[in-house]
């Protein structure tokens, strides 16, 4: 049975990665509702409010982490040709993670510390289960490619980010950590954004981007260096923040991250230049847009670490601008683009792969409407860019309007995925390509 390139006989049933990804997509939609409805609280510069903290955890845990867990469960077997250690463990870890994140976000939004604590404990269990499952899986790796190292590093950073979050929460009650709140937060952000999020994107992206662009023959020399610099930047940023060594260490760490992004950008340009697919597809458009935001975010971060801040922005608004570019621009848009490819593929595999060749089956891309996808891209790009510009201009009201545009984009995105998941759009193929 010929399984296509995003699958392998060793992969777990698609329902394991799919449940995480669908949870992520639902979280993404909810997140946009909150940003559009409560924009003034989130973008106003005074970010230490329950709305924003809840939204940040919804974004980082409910949206990005959930999707990345699903992607790693699907792609580690494909990329590294090894089986996931335990599918049962993978399924088991989903429920505490889901309940935990939902409870934490609800707890923040209702200002209920008990709920946050209890749910947080559940979330940690769920996420630790995933980390354990992957670490046990990696015992079987034979060929240690750049992608293998990047994914292992990313998962270890995820473990550290979650553990540090747990320590920060306990610290709020028992006060045993030093370094001050801002340094502690810097460590949390370095571990999560540069370590868990960006290393996963590098590890998975260096494989998927050329595959989706049909690109071959580009140089792979920079990949290892880019991933290594990113990991070093995340580690030094985290250690520097945790140890309270603000002055020298953080700009150095930020510099490493900027260089890592520059190398990644050069590699993506090389990959696109070697593409055989003539039209630029939806996934490539999202990836390029995401890359633009990534470069912006790393430059802004570096400026901030060197002590610069626009005179018209409060420190809170400046930080919001950087985090928004990194999280809603770089990370989110990259993931949305990949989802447009991966989720339809997984559903196709689940629903049609047995029937291919014996009856007319749809093309993978026919599972959702191309027009809906185009609108999702245009509105998400316009909305995210508009929000970013407004935040950097210190205009929370305008940012909220732009967030409404982004919400419209998210609705189109969610609808496209609904079409795929519910099979709303089977377009019967002509049978001229079916065997007689």
């Amino acid at each position: 049975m010929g399984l296509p390139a995003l699958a392998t006989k060793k992969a777990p049933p698609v329902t394991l990665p799919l449940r995480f990804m669908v949870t992520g997509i639902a979280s993404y939609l909810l997140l946009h509702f909150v940003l559009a409805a409560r924009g003034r609280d989130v973008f106003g510069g005074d970010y230490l409010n329950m709305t924003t903290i809840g939204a940040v955890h919804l974004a980082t845990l409910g949206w990005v982490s959930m999707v990345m867990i699903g992607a790693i469960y699907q792609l580690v077997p494909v990329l590294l040709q090894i089986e996931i250690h335990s599918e049962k463990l993978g399924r088991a870890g989903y429920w505490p993670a889901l309940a935990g994140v939902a409870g934490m976000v609800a707890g923040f939004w209702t200002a209920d510390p008990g709920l946050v604590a209890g749910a947080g404990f559940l979330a940690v269990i769920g996420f630790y289960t995933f980390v354990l499952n992957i670490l046990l899986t990696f015992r079987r790796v034979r060929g240690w490619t750049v992608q293998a190292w990047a994914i292992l590093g990313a998962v270890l950073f995820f473990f550290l980010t979650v553990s540090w979050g747990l320590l920060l929460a306990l610290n709020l009650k028992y006060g045993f950590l030093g370094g001050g709140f801002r340094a502690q937060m810097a460590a949390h952000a370095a571990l999560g954004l540069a370590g868990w999020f960006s290393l996963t994107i590098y590890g998975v992206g260096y494989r998927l981007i050329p595959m989706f662009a049909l690109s071959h023959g580009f140089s792979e020399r920079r990949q290892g260096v880019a991933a290594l610099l990113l990991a070093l930047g995340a580690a030094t940023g985290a250690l520097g923040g945790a140890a309270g060594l603000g002055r020298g260490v953080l700009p150095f760490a930020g510099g490493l991250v900027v260089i890592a992004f520059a190398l990644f950008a050069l590699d993506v340009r090389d990959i696109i230049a070697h593409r055989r697919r003539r039209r630029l597809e939806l996934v490539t458009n999202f990836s390029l847009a995401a890359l633009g935001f990534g470069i912006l975010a790393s430059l802004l971060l570096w400026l901030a670490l060197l002590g610069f801040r626009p005179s018209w922005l409060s420190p809170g608004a400046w930080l919001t601008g950087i985090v928004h570019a990194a999280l809603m621009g770089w990370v989110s848009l990259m993931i949305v683009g990949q989802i447009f490819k991966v989720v339809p593929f997984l559903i196709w595999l689940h629903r049609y792969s047995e029937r291919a060749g014996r009856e007319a089956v749809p093309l993978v891309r026919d599972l959702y409407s191309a027009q809906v996808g185009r609108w999702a891209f245009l509105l998400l790009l316009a909305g995210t860019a508009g929000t970013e510009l407004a935040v950097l201009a210190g205009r929370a009201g305008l940012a909220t309007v732009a967030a409404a545009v982004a919400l419209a984009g998210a609705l189109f995105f969610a609808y496209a995925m609904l079409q795929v998941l519910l099979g709303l759009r089977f377009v019967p193929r002509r049978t001229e390509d079916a065997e007689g």
Partner: protein
Amino acid sequence: MSGKQIEIDNRGLTPPEPMVRVLDTLEQMGSGDVLLVRNDRRPLFLYPELEDMGYVHETEPLPDGSFLIRIWKKAKD
């Protein structure tokens, strides 16, 4: 009207190299030529490209688990 028959063997290559080889070969073929491709997998992401470019394709599963894909240019009316 019969043209050349070109054969390529993509077995053992990792994605996206198989699809890239097919597209590169098609570029050098004439309108009457036929391309026969031996692939480890059904090239799911290749089919829409072929159809966009005006090619017709037939896929035949082979006894050893690989696939033979026949590709030729759609005749103009």
